[in-house]
């Protein structure tokens, strides 16, 4: 009997052994190897984006806008946008990883098909891919904080919590994004993603408080995941933890669970039906 059989047999009676082999780390290992040989450039250049935004909007827009009133305090515009940009880059990265990257691996390179021909299950693949995206998000968040702190943009010590918060919201976006991508078949459908994502970010309150809008628009914005993500990071950034923070967290917990459930089911339907 080969090793492979012994390893698979050892799990035969566990619940969920059909969808989960307990080896998402093999998928992460695969990403690490790929990082070494080919994917390091796109990953490394990903650091640049939020920093450029910070420079452009901080220096340029700061001149025009000056200060922003947030609740009962008045803060410098650059300080205002910093947490928003951190959250935005975490969400953007997660969306990119879970849409275009996943689309390519599903339809072009048929990578998941190859993985699922082994004893691995769909949940191993989904978790492995998502956790990898989170590693990326984590390193971006740390780098961003390392740049923002010396620039004096970090007002409170609790801003350290922005790192786990960024990873957490990236989890929500990555799991949901992967689920949605698994339904797409053509590049044209993928092209729609960009235009759907655009308002998600423009209206999320990253660049200005959404109180500038009429109530109904404000209400619509408050339904969007991007708003909850940005608010969550902003809460910890300024140390304003309250019941709202709890709401944002719950929002993402639901999003993560739904996303993982849908992704696992779809991968099963696509490759194992």
């Amino acid at each position, binding site marked *: 009997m080969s090793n492979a059989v012994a390893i698979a047999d050892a799990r035969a009676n566990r619940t969920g052994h059909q969808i989960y082999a307990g080896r998402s780390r093999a998928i992460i290992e695969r990403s690490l190897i790929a990082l070494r040989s080919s994917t390091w450039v796109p990953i490394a250049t990903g650091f640049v984006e939020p920093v*450029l935004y910070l420079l452009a909007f901080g220096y340029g*827009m700061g001149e025009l806008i000056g200060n922003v009133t947030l609740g009962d305090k008045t803060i410098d515009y650059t300080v205002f946008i910093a947490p928003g940009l951190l959250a935005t880059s975490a969400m953007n990265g997660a969306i990119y990883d879970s849409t275009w990257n996943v689309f390519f691996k599903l339809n072009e390179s048929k990578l998941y098909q190859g993985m699922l021909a082994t004893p691995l299950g769909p949940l191993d693949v989904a978790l492995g891919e998502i956790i990898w995206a989170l590693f990326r998000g984590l390193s971006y968040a740390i780098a961003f904080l390392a740049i923002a702190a010396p620039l004096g943009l970090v007002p409170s010590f609790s801003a350290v919590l922005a790192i786990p918060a960024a990873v957490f919201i990236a989890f929500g976006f990555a799991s949901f994004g992967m689920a949605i991508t698994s339904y797409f078949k053509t590049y044209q459908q993928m092209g729609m993603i960009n235009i759907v994502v655009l308002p998600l970010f423009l209206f999320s309150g990253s660049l200005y408080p959404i109180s500038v809008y009429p109530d109904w628009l404000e209400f619509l914005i408050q339904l969007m995941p991007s708003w909850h993500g940005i608010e969550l990071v902003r809460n910890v950034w300024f140390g304003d933890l309250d019941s709202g923070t709890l709401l944002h967290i719950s929002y993402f917990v639901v999003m993560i669970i739904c996303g993982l459930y849908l992704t696992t089911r779809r991968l099963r339907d696509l490759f194992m039906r």
Partner: protein
Amino acid sequence: MNSGISVTKIRSFGAIYVAEARISAMLKWKSVIAIVAIGNPLFYLIAIGIGVGVLVNENSGTSGTGGVEYITFIAPALLASAAITAALDEAMFPVMEGFKWRKLFYAMNSTPITGPQIALGVFIAALARVAFTVICYWAVLIAFGVMSVEQSWDVIPVTIFAAGAFAAIIIGITAKVKNDDYFMTVLNRLIIMPMFLFSGTFFPLDSMPIYLQPIGWISPLWHSTELGRYFSYGYPLSATMLTVHFAFLLALLIGGFALANKTFTIRLTK
């Protein structure tokens, strides 16, 4: 044997045939293109124009934007940037596809169509897409009352011209790319993104520290934006600067074509 093929006809209209092929390929994307063309201005105007505009107005009124409303100030810039994004799409992807992904250009080149004609055909098709995008964008701006028809119609040809110059240089550069592993990511993140942010799009370029301003000076987007402001609301530009902007874009157009013609010919005959 007469199969109706006329070599002389192909010689003179080759570029048109290539453009036709490109446009029919583009039409597979028509719903995406249309939604982007309308959605993009709508979202940006409501979010940045109005949202950020409120903050700007509360703080510095119109003093930072040369006496005009913030939305008026950014409208030509958003228009220029949408045009350039469309140009990038229709210049970069077809050339990658033609030389590398599906090798379509080699098939075209096995007919009497020449390399420069293929490059010109791709350019014409890109220009068509740009024109469509610009006209849609402009119509939305008019509908929002951000610009007036009489005062701003000449923004259309100027913006198309600038985006065309950008398309030409991108066609030339992309044709040189052999290994596409990182090309698009690097181009997007390290060139397009900084160009978008540091070209005086959202705030006057001279409000940036001087060491960041050169990014704007070499950016086609900045030149296009300055011209757009001049033609849409009478932003003050000296005759010298007007000439500089046009000359820069023209040089880009000519340089782009020179590079494209040379690279296409070399790559197709190798």
